[in-house]
C-alpha cells in the first residue's frame, strides 16, 4: 500500500493539484482585487465629489476635472481588470493587468495627494495584496510599473510623485529599493507558500493514489464478495436441503427457501425460535432439551424430529447443526442443514418391518432346524449306537459287512447333516467363534491324527509340518480351524489315489500382536481345471459333476470353509492343474499369545550336534524331518534308499563321526525299513546307532519283531513333532524319559483313572427307549453300573433314594426337561454337595451349550452319542474330581 514518491501518478497528480491550487488562489485573488479595485474606484469618486466637486470660473461653476478623472481614470483602472476577471479568471494576463491597475491606483493616489509620503504606503499594501497571487512575476510587473512611474514622474513631474519641484535621482532609487526589499520578502514568502502548497499537493496526490488503490481493492473485494454472495445465494437456493444460521443464542437469522418450504413458513417467519412450535408434541421436550444443551455448550448437534406444518402435514426432519467460531475462538453461532427424511423414515419403517419379518423367519427356520436336527439325531443316535454295539459282538463276515455298511452310512449321513447345519448357521449369520488360546502344532497334529487312518487306508502319505518361524501359540477358534483343515485334507485324500497329501503351515505376515498364518494342503490327486476352480467355493458345487457320484458329498464343504476362513479374516484359494494335483491354501489371522508355563521335562540342549540319518523315499517327508531336526540343533543327512543309507552310515563310522540316530521309513521300495534295520543290526560297526521306525502300520508291528530288528521306537505317521522330540529325547536320556512317560501314561489311561476312582454310580436320564439302551450299553461296556430315568421328575425321585456321581441328562424330556431338572437339583443341593451333570442334547445349534451351563450342568455331549465322547466326558469328571474342583 505505500506508493513510492516518484510514482508517475503521484508526480503527475502532484503537478495537477499544485496547479489547481494555484489557479484557485489566482481566481480568489482575482475576486479580491475585483472588490479592491471597485472599492478604490468608488472611494476615489466619493473623495473627488467631497473634496473638489466643482471648479469655478468667476461666479460660474462646473464639475471639477478631478471628479471626471476619478470617474474616468478610476473606471478605466478598475473596469479593465474587471473585464479580464470576467473573461479570463485566474489567467496570467488578468493578474498582470490587475497588478498594473492596482499600481495605477497607487500612482493616481500619490498624484492626487501631491506626492504625499503617506500615500506611498498604498504601493506597499498593494504589493502585499498582489502577493496573494503567490506569483512572483506579478510582483515584478507591479514593481516595474511603480518604478517606471516613480522614475518618469520623478524626472519630469517631481511635484506629482514626491511633492517637490525637483527630486534627486537617489529619491527614486530609495523608493525603488524599498519596493525591491518588500518584493524580496514577499517572494520568499511566496516561495515558501508555493513549496508548502506543493508538499500538500504531493501528500494529497499520495493520498489519492492510496485512496485509488484502496478503492480499487474495495471494488475488487466488493465484486468478489458480490460474486461469492451470488454463488452462495445460488448454492443456497439450489441446495436440496434446508440451510439455516443462528446466533450464539440460537435465534435463527438466515434460512434458505428450502428450509421455509420444509417448515411451511414465510421467509420472515423463521427468525427467532418460532420453528419450535412446529415440533411434534411428543418430541418437543426432547428436541428442545437436546438443542438447548448443544447451544449452551457451543457443540455440534444432530436432531431428528417430527414436525407438524400449518397444513397439518407431519414430516420427519433431520437437523444437523455445526458450531462455528470466530478466529479468536469465540463461539458465534451455528450453521446447519435440515433434511426432509420422511421418505427415508417410511422406508426405514418398512425395512424394520421387513427385518422383523425376516428375523422372525430366521428364528422360525432356526427353530425348525433345531427341531429337525433333534428329530434326525435321535434316530441317528440309535442307529450309530446300536450298529457300534452290534459290531462289538461276534458276527459272521457277512453280518459284520452289513453292520459296518450301516454304521458308515450313518456316519456319512451325520456328516452331511452337520454340513447342512453349519451352512445354515453361516447363512443365517449365527455362526459364532469361540476365542481361546491354543497350540497350533497340537491342533494340526490332532487334525492329522483324525485323518491318518483314512489316508493310510488309501496307502497315501499324510504329512504335516510347521515351517520354522511359524508362531505356535495363538488365540482364536481352534475348532473352526480344525474344521477347515479337516475339510480340505479330507477332500485331498478323497480325490487322491496315490502319492501324498501334505499340509504345510507358515507365517505370511503380521505384527507384534497378530499373525497371519498360511495353510497349504497339497495333494497328488486328479487336479482341477480352471473353469471349475472359479465355482469351487460356491455352495453345492463340486469339482466334477460326475465326481459327485464317484466321491460323494454335499458340495458344501468348501463353501463352508470359505465362509469360515473369511470370518477368520483370511482368504482361500486353489492352485491346480488337471492331472498334476492341487494345492488348496488359506490364510487366517490369529492373535499371538505367550507360550503356556509348562514343566518342560525334555532338554533339547542334549540333542544339539547329534548326527542323524533319515531314510525315506518320500522327499516331502524328508524335508519335514530335516526342518524338525535342524530346529532342535541336530545334524541330519538324508538317504533315499537303504543302500545309500548303509553306505553313508559306514562312511560316517570311518570318519569317526557316526550317526547316533537313524530314522527309517517302513514303506520303501525294494528294501523296506524293517529289512534295513535288520541289516544295520547285523553290522557290528553300526551298533552305536539308535533306530526309530516311522510307519503307517505301526500298530500291526509286533514288538518282538521290532526288538529283533534293533528298533528302539516306532512312531505312527504322520509324525507329531512333539512325539518325535519326546521319543528322541527318551533315547538319549532313556531312564528319566521312561519314568516321565510312565507317569504320564498312568495319568491319561482311563482304566487307571477308573481304577483310582472306583465304581461310579451313574444315572441316565433319557426319554427315548432306544437311546436309553445305547447309553446303557456303552456304560456297561466300560464297566459302569447305570440307572435310568425317563424324565426330570424321575431324576428327582431317584435322587431322593440314591446318590449318583454322574447324571447323563437329556435336555428335552416330557413333563420336566433336563434344564428344569438340573435347576431343581442345584436348588436341592444348595451348594452343600454337587452332582456332576452331563447334558445330552440333539440340539447342536448355538446357545445350547450356554443354556446347559446356565442351568447348572457341568459338561455337554451332542447326540448322536459315541462311546468315545462318553469316555472323554467321564474322564473329565474324574480329572476334575481328582484335582478337587468338584466334591464327591
Amino acid at each position, binding site marked *: 500500500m505505500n506508493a513510492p514518491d516518484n510514482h508517475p501518478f503521484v508526480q503527475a497528480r502532484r503537478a495537477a493539484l499544485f496547479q489547481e491550487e494555484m489557479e484557485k488562489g489566482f481566481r480568489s485573488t482575482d475576486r479580491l482585487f475585483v472588490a479592491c479595485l471597485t472599492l478604490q474606484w468608488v472611494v476615489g469618486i466619493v473623495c473627488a465629489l467631497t473634496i473638489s466637486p466643482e*471648479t*469655478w470660473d*468667476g461666479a460660474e461653476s462646473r464639475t471639477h*476635472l478631478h471628479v471626471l478623472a476619478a470617474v474616468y481614470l478610476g473606471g478605466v483602472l478598475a473596469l*479593465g481588470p474587471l473585464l479580464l476577471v470576467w473573461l*479570463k479568471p485566474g489567467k496570467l494576463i488578468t493578474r498582470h493587468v490587475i497588478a498594473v491597475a492596482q499600481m495605477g491606483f497607487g500612482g493616481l493616489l500619490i498624484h492626487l495627494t501631491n506626492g504625499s509620503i503617506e500615500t506611498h504606503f498604498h504601493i506597499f499594501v498593494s504589493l502585499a495584496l498582489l502577493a496573494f497571487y503567490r506569483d512572483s512575476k506579478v510582483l515584478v510587473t507591479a514593481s516595474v510599473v511603480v518604478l517606471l512611474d516613480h522614475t518618469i514622474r520623478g524626472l519630469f513631474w517631481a*511635484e506629482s510623485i514626491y*511633492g*517637490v519641484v*525637483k527630486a534627486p535621482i537617489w529619491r527614486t532609487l530609495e523608493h525603488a529599493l524599498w519596493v525591491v526589499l518588500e518584493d524580496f520578502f514577499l517572494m520568499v514568502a511566496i516561495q515558501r507558500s508555493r513549496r508548502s502548497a506543493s508538499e500538500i499537493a504531493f501528500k494529497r496526490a499520495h493520498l489519492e493514489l492510496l485512496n485509488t488503490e484502496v478503492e480499487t481493492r474495495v471494488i475488487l473485494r466488493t465484486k468478489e464478495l458480490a460474486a461469492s454472495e451470488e454463488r452462495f445465494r445460488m448454492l443456497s437456493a439450489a441446495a436440496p436441503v434446508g440451510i439455516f444460521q443462528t446466533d450464539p443464542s440460537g435465534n435463527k437469522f438466515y434460512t434458505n427457501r428450502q428450509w421455509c418450504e420444509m417448515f411451511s413458513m414465510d421467509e420472515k417467519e423463521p427468525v427467532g425460535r418460532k420453528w419450535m412450535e412446529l415440533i411434534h408434541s411428543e418430541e418437543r421436550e426432547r428436541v428442545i432439551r437436546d438443542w438447548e444443551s448443544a447451544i449452551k455448550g457451543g457443540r455440534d448437534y444432530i436432531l431428528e424430529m417430527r414436525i407438524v406444518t400449518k397444513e397439518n402435514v407431519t414430516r420427519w426432519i433431520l437437523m444437523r447443526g455445526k458450531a462455528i467460531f470466530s478466529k479468536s475462538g469465540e463461539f458465534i453461532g451455528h450453521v446447519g442443514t435440515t433434511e426432509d427424511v420422511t421418505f427415508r423414515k417410511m422406508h426405514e419403517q418398512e425395512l424394520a418391518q421387513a427385518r422383523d419379518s425376516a428375523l422372525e423367519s430366521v428364528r422360525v427356520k432356526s427353530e425348525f432346524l433345531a427341531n429337525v436336527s433333534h428329530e434326525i439325531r435321535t434316530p441317528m443316535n440309535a442307529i450309530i449306537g446300536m450298529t457300534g454295539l452290534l459290531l462289538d459282538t461276534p458276527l459272521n463276515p457277512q453280518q459284520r459287512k452289513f453292520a459296518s455298511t450301516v454304521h458308515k452310512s450313518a456316519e456319512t449321513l451325520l456328516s452331511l447333516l452337520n454340513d447342512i447345519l453349519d451352512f445354515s448357521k453361516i447363512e443365517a449369520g449365527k455362526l459364532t467363534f469361540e476365542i481361546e488360546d491354543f497350540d497350533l502344532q497340537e491342533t494340526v497334529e490332532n487334525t492329522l491324527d483324525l485323518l491318518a487312518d483314512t489316508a493310510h487306508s488309501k496307502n497315501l502319505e499324510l504329512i504335516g509340518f510347521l515351517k520354522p518361524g511359524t508362531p505356535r501359540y495363538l488365540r482364536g477358534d481352534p475348532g473352526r480351524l480344525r474344521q477347515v483343515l479337516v475339510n480340505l485334507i479330507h477332500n485331498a485324500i478323497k480325490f487322491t489315489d496315490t502319492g501324498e497329501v501334505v499340509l504345510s503351515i507358515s507365517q505370511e505376515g503380521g505384527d507384534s500382536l497378530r499373525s497371519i498364518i498360511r495353510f497349504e494342503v497339497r495333494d497328488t490327486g486328479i487336479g482341477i481345471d480352471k473353469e471349475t476352480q472359479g465355482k469351487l467355493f460356491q455352495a453345492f458345487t463340486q469339482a466334477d459333476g460326475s465326481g459327485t457320484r464317484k466321491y460323494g458329498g454335499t458340495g458344501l464343504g468348501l463353501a463352508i470353509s470359505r465362509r469360515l476362513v473369511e470370518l477368520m479374516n483370511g482368504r482361500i484359494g486353489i492352485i491346480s492343474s488337471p492331472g498334476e494335483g492341487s494345492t488348496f491354501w488359506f490364510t487366517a489371522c490369529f492373535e499371538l499369545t505367550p507360550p503356556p508355563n509348562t514343566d518342560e521335562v525334555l532338554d533339547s540342549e542334549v540333542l544339539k550336534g547329534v548326527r542323524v540319518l533319515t531314510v525315506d523315499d518320500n522327499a516331502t517327508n524328508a524335508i519335514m524331518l530335516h526342518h524338525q531336526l535342524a530346529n532342535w540343533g541336530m545334524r541330519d543327512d538324508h538317504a533315499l534308499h537303504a543302500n545309500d543309507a548303509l553306505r553313508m552310515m559306514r562312511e560316517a563310522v570311518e570318519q569317526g563321526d557316526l550317526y547316533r540316530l537313524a530314522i527309517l521309513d517302513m514303506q520303501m521300495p525294494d528294501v523296506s525299513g524293517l529289512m534295513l534295520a535288520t541289516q544295520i543290526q547285523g553290522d557290528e560297526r553300526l551298533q552305536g546307532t539308535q533306530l526309530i521306525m516311522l510307519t503307517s502300520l505301526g500298530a500291526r508291528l509286533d514288538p518282538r519283531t521290532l526288538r529283533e530288528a534293533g528298533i528302539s521306537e516306532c512312531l505312527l505317521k504322520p509324525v507329531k513333532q512333539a512325539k518325535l522330540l519326546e521319543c528322541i529325547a527318551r533315547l538319549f536320556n532313556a531312564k528319566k524319559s521312561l519314568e516321565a512317560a510312565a507317569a504320564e501314561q498312568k495319568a491319561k489311561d482311563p482304566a487307571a483313572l477308573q481304577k483310582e476312582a472306583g465304581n461310579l454310580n451313574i444315572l441316565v436320564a433319557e426319554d427315548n427307549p432306544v437311546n436309553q439302551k445305547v447309553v446303557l450299553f456303552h456304560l456297561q461296556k466300560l464297566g459302569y453300573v447305570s440307572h435310568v430315568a425317563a424324565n426330570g421328575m424321575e431324576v428327582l425321585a431317584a435322587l431322593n433314594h440314591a446318590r449318583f456321581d454322574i447324571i447323563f441328562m437329556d435336555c428335552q424330556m416330557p413333563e420336566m426337561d433336563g434344564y428344569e431338572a438340573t435347576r431343581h437339583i442345584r436348588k436341592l443341593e444348595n451348594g452343600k454337595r454337587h452332582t456332576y451333570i452331563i447334558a445330552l442334547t440333539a440340539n447342536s445349534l448355538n446357545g445350547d451349550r450356554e443354556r446347559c451351563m446356565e442351568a447348572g450342568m457341568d459338561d455337554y455331549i451332542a447326540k448322536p452319542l459315541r462311546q468315545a465322547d462318553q469316555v472323554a466326558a467321564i474322564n473329565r469328571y474324574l480329572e476334575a474330581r481328582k484335582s478337587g474342583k468338584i466334591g464327591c
Partner: protein
Amino acid sequence: MAALWKKWFTEKTLPGRFALGGVVTLWLVALAYGAYQLHEYASIPGTSPSPLQQWPVESRLQLAADRPTLVFFMHPKCPCSRATLAELERFLVGYGSACQIYGVFVRGQRHAPSWIEGPLWEKVGLMENVARMEDAGGVEGGRFQVGVSGECFLFAPDGSILFHGGITPARGHIGDSRGLQALMSRIKEWHAGAHPMERVDTPVFGCSIRRMCTPPAAEGAKL
C-alpha cells in the same frame, strides 16, 4: 451575448488572442489618455496677465511702510486654493512677520455676503499675520487686475511690485514650487536691502476669478 463574447475572448485562437491584446492595449491607451489629461489640467496655469507695476493707489488696502506687503486673492469656492493656503501656511512659518499680508476673498455682485463663507474663508481667518478681507463685487480684484484664485502680489513699501504669481507647483497641488521660492526669495532680498528689484512672475494654478472682479473703468461709476 455576454457568454459569446466571453467565449470569443477566451478561446485560444489567433483572433481571440488578438482581441485580448487589443483590449489590453486599448486599456493602456485609455489610462495614458486619462493620465495625460490629468497632467494637463494640473500643469496648465490660469490666465492672469496682470500688468500692474505699482501699488494701486485706489486700493483701500494699506501698503506697509516698513516691510513688503503681500496680497493674495482667493475664490471662496476654489478647491485648488486649498493648496495655496497650505503653501501659505508653510510660508507664514518663516515669513509671517516679514511682510504685511492680506487675504482677499472676491465675492461676485450677485452673491450674498455669506457666499464667501466656507473652509477657505475660515482657514484664512485663523492664520496669524494674515488680514482676511472681503472684496464685495471684486473691486479690489479689479484694481489689482486679478485673474486666477491664489494669485499673489508682493509690493515693496514704495509701492513697486516685487512678485506676481502662484505659489503652488500645479493646480491643486501642494509642494515645492518656483512661485513660493521666488516669493520667499524676494522678501529675503528686500530685507537684505536689495532695492530696487525686478518684478518676478510665476504661473498661477487655480479657478478663474476674473469675471467676478470689477474693471477699474467701471469702478467710479460703481463707487
